[in-house]
C-alpha cells in the first residue's frame, strides 16, 4: 500500500480519482491549491486507488494522508 501524504498545507481544488480507479505512475490524482498556485499530486506507481481521504474545497494540513494506492 502506498500512502500519498500532503507535503504542505493548502486547500483541495480538484479530486481526479476515486476508490477503484486504476492509475498509472505519473497520472494526476488530485490538485491542491497552495498560495493561489495549483499543485498537482501524481501517482508514484501503477495501481488501484483504494481510499480517498480528501474532498474538494477541504482545507488540509501538512503530512495529512490524502490517498492510498495498492500496487
Amino acid at each position, binding site marked *: 500500500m502506498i500512502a500519498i501524504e500532503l*507535503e*504542505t*498545507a493548502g486547500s483541495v481544488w480538484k479530486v481526479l480519482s476515486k476508490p477503484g480507479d486504476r492509475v498509472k505512475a505519473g497520472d494526476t490524482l488530485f490538485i491542491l491549491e*497552495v*498560495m*493561489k*498556485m*495549483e*499543485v*498537482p499530486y501524481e501517482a508514484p506507481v501503477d495501481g488501484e486507488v483504494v481510499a480517498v481521504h480528501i474532498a474538494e474545497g477541504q482545507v488540509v494540513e501538512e503530512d495529512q494522508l490524502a490517498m492510498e494506492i495498492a500496487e
Partner: protein
Amino acid sequence: MNWKPETEEIARRRQLALEQGGADAVAKQHGKGKLTVRERIDKLLDPGSFEELGPAAGAAIHDENGELIGFDPANFVLGFGRIDGRRIIVGGEDFTMRGGSPSPAGLRKSVYTEELAVQYKLPLVRLHEGSGGSVGGTSGKGASLPGPVNAPARFRSVAEAMATVPVATAALGAVAGLPAGRLVASHFSVMSKATAQILTAGPAVVARAMGEQKSKEELGGWKVHTKNGTVDNGAADEAACLAEIRRFLSFMPANVEQLAPVIECDDPVDRRDEALLDIVPRDRRKAFDMRRIIRSLFDQASFFEVGAGYGRSQITGLARLNGQPVGVWANDCKFLAGSMTADGAHKARRFMELCETFSLPIVSLVDEPGFMIGSQAEREATIRHGTAAVLTAAMTNVPWASIMIRRSFGVAQAAHYGPEGFVLAWPSAESGPLPVEGGVAVAFQREIAAAPDPEARRRELEEELAARQSPFPRAEALGVHDLIDPRQTRTELCRWVDRI
C-alpha cells in the same frame, strides 16, 4: 649498538595501531554495514594520498617484563590527503575503540584538526561517528585534571576554521554530543541514510531526562534531520556521502584568500534550449519546473543541490558557468508557491554566507511571491527570518546576476538581488509590491463589493493591474539591464561571468 630495537618497536606499534580496536571490533563494525575510519579515509581520498599525522599517539601496553604486548592508538585518525589532486586535511573518530568517545590522545588529535586546517589554509573534511565525553572523563577513571582557566577557548579553532577554509563533514554512524556539534560546524554536511543518526543526546539520556521513549532513528534519523536543516544533504550510504563531499569541494577554493578553481568546459556558452520558450505557463496559477531551468542554464550536469530536504520553497546549490563555479539560488513554485518561509529564509541566508565567505558569484533565478503568510507563518517568525535574509543579501560583496523568471514581489523579493547586481528579465516576469490576486481584493474591496457582478469586476481589475506589472515598461525605464529571450539566458550568464 644501533637503534634497531627501537626502530623495530616503532614498526610494531604502527602495525598494532592499524589494527584499530582489534579484529573483533572491526568485524562488528563491518557487520553493521559500516566502514572503519581508515577505510572511510581511503575511500574519500585519491588512492594512496593519505599522509597520517600523529600515528604514534596512543597508549602502549607492556607485560611485567616491560615487553610491548599491545598498543591502543588514539581513537581519532588525522592527516593530509588529496581529492582530485588538491590537498586537504581529513580526520575522523575511530568507532571501533571506545565507541568513538575521545581517549586522551584522541581528543588532542581531534582538537588539532581545526588548528591544522587554519595553519595550512587547507579544506577540512571530518568523518564523524562517535559520542561525546562520558561522565567518567577522558581517562575513563574519573581522575583527569580540569583544564586551567587560561586555556584557549575550546571552540575558537572550530570557529576560525569556518572563517578560513571550506569545512565539509559527514555523519556516517551514530553521532552524539561533541561530534554532533562539530558535524554541524561546517559549510556542508551530509548524513548516511543507511547508517547515521545525529543526536544531541542519545535515547538513554533522553528517557532519563524527558521520559520520552524513542529509538536513535526516531530521535535523530535522516527523516528528522534532512527536513529540519541540521544537515544539508542525506545520501544513501557511506560511499554516497563521501562522493558528495568530493563534489562539494570541487566548487570550493582552498581557503578564503583564493578563488574557486575554474575547469575546462565543453558545454557551448551559446547553447540555446528551445524548451525555455514555453516552460513558464501563461496561466499564472500553473507551476513550472525550476530545476529543469537550472539544469538547462548551467554547464551540463554541474548543478549540485544543497539542502533539498528543508526550506523547500527555496532551491540552493552550486554549479558552473563556462567552468566557473557559482552559487545558484532559485524559488520552487511547486512548494508553497516558492514563497519565503522561515526555514527557506534561513537556508537562503546560509547559502549567501557560503558564497560570500568563498567569493562565489551568485546567480539568482527569481520567482518570489513574497513572504509566506498565515497563522503558521506568523508562529514561525517568518518576517524576522525573512528580513534577515534580505539584509544578508544587501551586505554581500560578491557579484550577483538575477534573472527575473516570473514573480518578484514584496519585501521578500529584495533578498534575490545583490548590491549593484546584473538584472535580466524574461517576458514572463512580473513585479510589484504584491501579487495582483491578493492586492486587488484588498485595495479595491469597496469597488468590487459595489459592482453589479463583483466577481467579474475583480477579474477585470486583476487583469488591468497585471498588465501594469509587465516587464516592458520596466525595461524602458532601465529598471533591468535587459529584457531577454529565455533561450538567450545561458549565453548572457556566461558573458556576465566572464566580465566579473
